[in-house]
């Protein structure tokens, strides 16, 4: 009997704590499911733009979920986020956010403070994507009157941009790691909205110093950056030979870095490229012979080496940015020399950059058996 009474009391304690948010649980209907976060800043603080699921207007049988745009202001980002519960009566759920988009103003002011909020918030994803936009982030998703761009579409633009060599996507934790390291350079893609078509593209990269957006690469330099990173995949490159113009798709570009820490500091970069010919602009329908293929390969090699050298020159000499994390690699390989070199190593390496590109043309489109 005693046991039964004990179990009954325990059961009652349990039941009283159930459904009363005693331990911070919330029904899904009581949550504001945030799909995308936009952050702008000005002298008054932060403007937070959220694209959240509109559960009340959702048709349960439909596959599409309507969203709503919400804007909150606050002196700090925490303030702004804190206003959500008061204004909507819902508990914000950041974990479903697909990306965080910073407006130019916020990015130029510095991402340290806003990212600190997400670093401390366990509810947020560490691998949420980071991006910036040229204009204010608050307008990016659309306005309350206009048709909004779904977060899914924007995420897709970033994914496809990254998969076609147009931009370099980066998750929050990597961005923070790069920002925190003294020698590394943080970067993120730049999103552009086509107002007429209401579509988003992603094709350039923003670079940060001390958490602030300072430099921007164009398409070619972005390609070079991706080559330096060994991340160039499915990028389209056009080369010209005596036979005409060839468009190739770089399927894969594997990068290998060798550092020498002796008197002549050198960085030797081997890039193995596999590419497919996807178009031969010659005015007719011709098959490619061995010679043409070799010529295409050489042209691509030349083009990529040129892109690489230009990129290296820009990043290491002009901007003094260690985008390949050479300093850290060097430190790992030669910890004893590290202290004597310190950051001057970047200048040394800038002069000693040697790159080798080997190209394999895998498919020409009309293979002979």
């Amino acid at each position, binding site marked *: 009997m005693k046991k039964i009474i004990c179990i009954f009391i325990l*059961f009652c304690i*349990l*039941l009283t*704590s*159930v*459904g009363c948010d*005693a*331990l*911070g*649980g*919330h*029904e*899904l*209907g009581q*949550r504001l*499911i945030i*799909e995308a976060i936009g952050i702008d800043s000005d002298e008054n603080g932060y403007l937070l733009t959220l694209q959240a*699921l509109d*559960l*009340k207007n*959702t*048709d*349960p049988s439909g596959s599409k*979920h309507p969203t709503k745009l919400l804007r909150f202001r606050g002196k700090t980002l925490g303030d702004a986020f804190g206003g959500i519960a008061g204004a909507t009566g819902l508990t914000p*759920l950041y*974990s*479903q956010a*697909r990306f965080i988009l910073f407006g130019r103003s916020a990015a130029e002011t510095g991402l340290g403070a806003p990212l600190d909020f997400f670093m401390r918030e366990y*509810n947020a*994803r560490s691998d949420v994507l980071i991006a910036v936009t040229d204009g204010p982030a608050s307008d990016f998703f659309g306005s309350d009157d206009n048709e909004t761009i779904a977060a899914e579409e924007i995420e897709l633009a970033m994914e496809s941009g990254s998969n076609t060599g147009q931009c370099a996507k980066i998750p929050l934790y990597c961005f923070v790691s790069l920002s925190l390291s003294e020698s590394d350079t943080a970067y993120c893609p730049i999103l552009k909205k086509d107002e007429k078509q209401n579509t988003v593209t992603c094709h350039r990269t923003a670079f940060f110093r001390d958490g602030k957006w300072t430099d921007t690469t164009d398409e070619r330099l972005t390609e070079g950056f991706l080559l330096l990173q060994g991340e160039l995949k499915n990028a389209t490159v056009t080369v010209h030979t005596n036979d005409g113009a060839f468009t190739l798709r770089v399927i894969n570009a594997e990068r290998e870095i060798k550092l020498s820490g002796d008197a002549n500091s050198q960085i030797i970069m081997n890039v193995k490229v596999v590419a497919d010919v996807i178009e031969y602009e010659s005015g007719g329908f011709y098959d490619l012979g061995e010679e043409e293929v070799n010529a295409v390969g050489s042209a691509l090699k030349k083009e990529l080496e040129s892109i690489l050298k230009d990129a290296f020159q820009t990043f290491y000499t002009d901007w003094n940015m260690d985008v390949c994390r050479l300093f850290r690699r060097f430190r790992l390989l030669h910890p004893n020399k590290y202290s004597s070199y310190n950051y001057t190593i970047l200048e040394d390496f800038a002069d000693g950059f040697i790159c080798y590109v080997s190209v394999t043309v895998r498919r020409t489109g009309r293979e002979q058996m």
Partner: protein
Amino acid sequence: MERPVLIHADVKTNTDELKRRFHNSFDLTVRELTVGGVCAAAAALEGMCSDEIIAETLLKPLTNESPQGKTALTEYELEARLYKGMGVQKTCAFDEVCEALCRGFLVLFLENAGFAYLFSVQGYPKKAVEEPQTEQNERGATEGFTDTLRDNTALLRRRLQTPFLVFEKLELGRTAHTPVAICYLSDRTPADLLEKVRNRLSVAKLDTLTGAISLRPFLDGTPPSLFSSTGFTQRPDKLAAKLTEGRVGVLADGSPFALIVPGLLIDYFQAEDDYASNVFYSFFIRILRAVSFLISAALPGLFVAVCDFHPEALPPGIMADIAAAEARTPFSLMTEALLIHLVYEIVREAGLRMPRAVGHAVSIVGALAVGNAAVEAGLIAAPMLLIVALTAVSSAVVPKLNESVAPIRFCLIILGGAAGSFGVFLGIGLLLADVCATSPYGIPFSAPFSPFSNKAQADSLWRRNMKMLGEIRQKIGDLKFG
């Protein structure tokens, strides 16, 4: 101690005593006759004996062949006739006569004999050997135990044709005196295990024994656990296989189920069909059963926990669907889960207890009314219905564990609603401790995983091929301590 009542020399006195003891029950039939010139009386309980056997092998030789007018037969002559082709016992105690009558024997009193003959002429109505309904098999044997102990022992003996197979007979039930048989292979079964089974059965103070399953609590030991460490089967081939591992079987008259002692958790995930499949498929199917068990026990609780406390674990698309559906229901997710599972249990119980034809109707009404209508009325969200459907189907994969799983499921729903995955895993931890603490015969219920036995892994979730299994010869005693 009370002195046993002895059989009287006078037939009339004996038949009167019999009638008195049976309170003139109408099924007690007493017929007076003359056997070899001697006055006699035959008594039997109607319906318990075979009329054919009585007529052909008993009454005919005793009455028709006796020469008229001849002097009474000597006892020796009489017994020579009586023993012609049937089991006969002699007794002087009236109590034994009564017991024998209850078991379907025919009793013959002879004038001036002072004892009675008990003829084994049982012929009560009984079920034929059929395929077991609760343990269907695709490729294995199709015979199942019947309700008759004798038939069951014969079924087992046919599968284990060895003198090492021993049946020990007990009578349980203070009123019912139901015959119970402990069966084991004397060369494989650990003596202490057998002794413990005997001891536990001997203290089973029951008035009547409704079936072998009633003996489970006595065999399970203390402290009580959610899981019974006494297995059961309706298949003689399965019992035979378990006996060869050194386990003990318990059969009871009037029950088509045999108890297997000790039962291990892993037994619930094994079936006889596994040995007829190839090793990879049987591994897959055993894993599937284990996963089904986990799903049926923990899925609703985890679903509630994830939705209420850890929605980040849900992929965005799925979460949006769930959130949209849940936003329209009036109940909290936990209440919804409790209600829908309660309704499921009601429908299930109704389907089991109702006559088969009505049972189908109940299932259809349950599925239609509870499922479709509740979702359309916005009382229950469609994802929750999917969860209950998954749970129900999964629990059907391991039906023997259903009685353990049902309460666990409800507890985990409450814990999930109260403390999220923390609560669910705390519940699972306690459950794990319960499983690990169960070892009523010194053989842990959680064996062969914990304590881990390498040898026993040959036939646990993974099964080695039959050639190897034949060589390994597993014994339950090997799992005693790890």
